[in-house]
């Protein structure tokens, strides 16, 4: 159904000009160009869907680890705040300071290794490599 804009009141020169735009005829190669692209798409391998089922446990684990790290960091900062003093550090706390980064580095390496192993396993299951 055509609308009331077609009524004489509105059918002014602007309407007449814009309604009577020229008709283009697609170029001769247009159809062939579209079909070529369509055929290319049809034979292209389908994109690999993201393996949510496999990735979800890893993502939950990673989120939990990050949350735990943040919690530990905040707790450590809050715990150490009252201990700030100008007295010479005791041997035990010095050892703790040296060991602490080592533990963290080891933990980070283990996490990276775990992530790499998981990614490799997922990739092998989907025959990426």
């Amino acid at each position, binding site marked *: *159904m*055509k*609308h009331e*804009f*077609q009524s004489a009141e509105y059918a*002014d*020169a*602007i*309407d007449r*000009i*814009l*309604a009577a*735009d020229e*008709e*283009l*005829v*697609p*170029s001769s190669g*247009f*159809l062939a*160009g*579209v*079909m070529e*692209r*369509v*055929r290319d*798409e*049809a034979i292209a391998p389908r994109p690999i869907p993201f393996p949510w089922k496999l990735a979800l446990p890893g993502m939950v684990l990673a989120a939990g680890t990050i949350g735990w790290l943040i919690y530990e960091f905040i707790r450590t900062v809050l715990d150490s705040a009252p201990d700030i003093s100008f007295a010479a550090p005791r041997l035990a706390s010095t050892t703790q300071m040296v060991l602490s980064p080592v533990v963290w580095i080891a933990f980070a390496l283990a996490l990276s290794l775990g992530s790499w192993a998981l990614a490799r396993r997922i990739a092998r299951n989907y025959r990426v490599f």
Partner: protein
Amino acid sequence: MQESPIAAAEHETDRDSADVARVLAGDVGAFEGIVRRWQGPLVNMAWRYCRDRGRAEEMAQDALIRAWRGLASWRSESSFSTWLFSIAANVYRTELKRFPTAPPLEEAAEPATPASQADEFEDRRQREALRRAVLALPHRYREPVVLFYFHEMDVGMAARTMGLPEGTVKARLARGRDLLRKRFPYLNPKAEATHMMSTGKDPVR
């Protein structure tokens, strides 16, 4: 009276449904029938969005590829043409946002004097200036104007293509046409009459 390419293509709904079914069953070649029927309307629609023939064909091709990818999402209870035009409008809108074609409306050409409309060349130039001025309209008014005239002044079809309520499209269309009338006052017969009364001259002669 000669039938418009859109009307001609819309009469072939059954063939569209049959071709879609064949494509979904794995016959890639069946898509050719759809392209053959709709290439004209889609290229012409794109032409009204950008007024650049080469670019119009590229945009129409992208729209057809998008339709090909989403063919399974077409529900046969809705019109194939509405579905296809909606996809095309989305593609064209996105494309023109990325690479705009037109200068702002204030910079678009306008008729210098009413008298200059007299000769045929000038008349043609002004018609083209008006069509280009449509592209210079603010985005929210441009698309309703483009689609309204593309769909042979059918507001309902323009609204369905844009996925907006008819009332919204009518309001934007009215505002867009107002902007054009203000930009091209001498093309409006009422303005011409007012001009004649105030100056005693016929603007067209």
